[in-house]
């Protein structure tokens, strides 16, 4: 079971390229038709150098290009079947667009017990930088581990 000793643990950094084909697949899956995400001219008119990514796409890039997408669970001995997503946040500091190469550096920021140990709540914070070393975003995810199977 994950405990306080995990706090500060750093996972393997992930480098991800924002590829247009993969982004289009994401847009199609969500039925996203906003031209700013699909049309370079519309993106430029909206102030971007190229088509930007939708607000939650950073989360996807990190998972898609991780060698071990669930390292943050396996490295800490957490069973994937017992995990729920509790919270998610993004702070956007600079634009992210097609062609960018991003580096994600996730680490465990907090671990707490809830409901008398029935749940363990882990917060993973991640700094995201681009190919020019610009700090483009910070993400935070809260992972809830069900220490007893739901009935």
């Amino acid at each position, binding site marked *: 079971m994950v405990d306080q000793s995990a706090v500060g643990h750093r996972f393997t950094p992930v480098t991800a390229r924002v590829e247009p084909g993969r982004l289009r697949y994401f847009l199609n899956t*969500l039925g996203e038709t906003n031209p700013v995400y699909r049309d370079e001219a519309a993106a430029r008119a909206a*102030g971007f150098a190229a088509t930007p990514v939708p*607000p939650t796409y950073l989360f996807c890039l990190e998972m898609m290009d991780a060698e071990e997408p669930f390292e943050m669970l396996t490295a800490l001995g957490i069973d994937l079947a017992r995990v729920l*997503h*509790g919270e998610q946040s993004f702070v956007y500091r600079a634009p992210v667009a097609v062609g960018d190469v991003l580096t994600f550096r996730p680490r465990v920021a907090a671990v707490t017990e809830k409901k008398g140990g029935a749940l363990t709540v882990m917060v993973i914070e991640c700094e995201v930088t681009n190919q020019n070393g610009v700090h483009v975003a910070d993400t935070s995810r809260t992972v809830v581990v069900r220490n007893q199977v739901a009935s």
Partner: protein
Amino acid sequence: MTEISAIKVGDRLVDKTFPPITRHTLALYCGASGDHNPIHVDIDFARNAGFPDVFAHGMLVMACLGQALTDAVPPARLRAFATRFVAITQLGARLTCEGTVAELFEENGERRAKLALTTKDERGEVKLEGSAVVAL
């Protein structure tokens, strides 16, 4: 963009309803997002984990909310976006995403608004509660 600079506290800025979530959507999102957790696509795995069926990725629901948000606010103005996943979103859910202006303030030399966001299913059950910060 002119209208967004004129918003007031209490204004409803975000309001969008999505088609029902299907198994196909979950399968596509599994590939599109890189989140290959079988609990969202493999009913055997989901049952063994104690759930009656597969259910939507929280991040799929947040992606819908994000889409509703940037329908209303140009993405270049988005400064922050956060949600709490309040309840599991079941198959067939028809999600409605709403957002109202909660606060106007100044930060980092720009005028900003904080939006209070919710996502509910067709029965009105809250799935996500969140907020966004946008530049005006």
